[in-house]
């Protein structure tokens, strides 16, 4: 459904992604894990064609989008929907208008049908009583759920989530996790960017771990738990690192080779 092949990307003078390859199969829920600034969100933007890779190729639904002009990308984007980190609801539109936005734009359905779809999507996320509220009146958790409802109403085959549980309390985190699971049972292809391990283990079919722009792991949740690669262990269990350890950024602000500083044993640290 989505394929990344040896993708490299720089933004300004910062190297963001280095030779990243992975594929998301239809109906799969793929979680992209990684620390802050590791390039996770950039992967979603690349999949949507909001960024273009410097090197490598990206295919969506079998079509290479790497060199497509912006006008042709609009058609590809109709197959996808993204839930942005802060929901990115349109401030000037009500919840109803936000959720039905893509359908209004497409102009293929009657006003009544669009209303109905918007209502169904909001009911799915448990917010069918806030149709006429404005985004500014909603809490963070509600905004995220409206963002999911907007993605659902669009009828997209692929849903991309950027940090869907970031900044939410445990209850709302659990609600979002359940929504992703429900969509998974419905066969929707989902890509979830997060650094929340609990949610990851709950929803993921497969996981990739991005560290400093490089693909450090690609496998199932079980394989991730068993993985002994030092950089993966560091990410999963940072508490096990000695307190003296600090990442060493290079001039790009990113740690380069080696990705992991050797773990000092007691007595060797001066």
């Amino acid at each position, binding site marked *: 459904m989505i394929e990344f092949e040896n993708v490299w990307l720089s933004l300004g003078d910062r190297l963001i992604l280095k030779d990243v390859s992975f594929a998301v199969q239809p109906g799969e829920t793929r979680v992209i894990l990684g620390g802050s600034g590791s390039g996770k969100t950039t992967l979603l933007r690349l999949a949507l064609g909001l960024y273009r890779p410097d090197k490598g190729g990206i295919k969506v639904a079998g079509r290479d989008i790497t060199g497509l002009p912006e006008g042709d990308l609009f058609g590809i984007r109709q197959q996808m929907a993204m839930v*942005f980190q802060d929901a990115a609801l*349109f401030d000037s539109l009500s919840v109803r208008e936000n959720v039905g936005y893509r359908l209004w734009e497409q102009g293929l359905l009657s006003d009544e049908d669009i209303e109905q779809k918007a209502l169904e999507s909001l009911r799915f996320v448990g917010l069918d009583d806030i149709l006429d509220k404005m985004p500014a009146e909603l809490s963070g958790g509600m905004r995220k759920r409206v963002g999911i409802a907007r993605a659902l109403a669009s009828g997209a085959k692929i849903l991309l989530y950027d940090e869907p549980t970031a900044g939410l309390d445990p209850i709302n985190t659990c609600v979002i996790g359940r929504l992703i699971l429900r969509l998974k049972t419905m066969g929707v292809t989902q890509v979830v960017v997060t650094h929340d391990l609990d949610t990851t283990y709950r929803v993921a079919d497969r996981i990739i771990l991005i560290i400093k722009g490089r693909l450090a792991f690609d496998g199932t949740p079980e394989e991730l738990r068993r993985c002994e690669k030092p950089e993966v262990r560091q990410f999963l269990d940072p508490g096990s690192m000695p307190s003296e350890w600090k990442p060493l950024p290079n001039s790009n602000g990113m740690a380069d080779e080696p990705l992991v500083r050797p773990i000092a044993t007691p007595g060797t640290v001066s």
Partner: protein
Amino acid sequence: MPTSVNFAARLFELLLIVQEFTVLCVQTVAGLVRPPWYLREIMLQLDRIGVGSLFIVMLTGLFTGMVLALQGAVQLEPYGATMYVSRLISESVVRELGPVLAALMIAGRVGTGIASEIASMQVTEQIDALRAEGTDPIKKLATTRLAACLIMIPLLTVITNCIAILGGWLVARLYLAIDSYFYWTWAFEAIQLDDIVQGLVKPLIFGFIIAMVSCYAGFSTKGGTAGVGVSTTQSMVYSSILILASDFFITKFFMAFA
């Protein structure tokens, strides 16, 4: 870093901005002639830009006309020509002051509004969300605002001109005791066809400048909420400079062909 390298870097940066601005202008204008038309959005902008700015341009026109009448009377008095003050008011308002002052006021009220709105959408990922939803943000945001500016700013300028001449009449009648018939006869007598053409071409160009500079400032916003403030200020400053500079060249152009 050597000064020459700094200069070259700055020059390159400037050229890049000019290139981006030109591309935005071309894409925005191209949007005027191809669907979707976003008529609802255009109507909303017509209301915001036109009706929303009506009061401020009327006040601007009123006081400009009143001040012109007072100052004009002082200048004309030694020649015993105070009664011809309406000629001075109508000609200077229609040709220069009306279009320029209205445009500057609209740049302050509307231009900054456009810049801050688009800038806020940029920093809160709403522009990316529009693209992700399959909408062309330039067409949806820039083209609609350009269309509204091109329609409303000439209309607002005509209203400013009328109110300014009316303001001049108030001072002429109540303070200078000039006969109303005499005032209005000379006011209309002074305005020629090329004054009217010039008075309508200028606001059209100023409208283009206000819309495009504001949209560019909004779309090029970087750096979170602090960037929104910077973009808003930039839109006002660059719009004002371009309005004043282009006014000079348009005037030169019309004088050359008069």
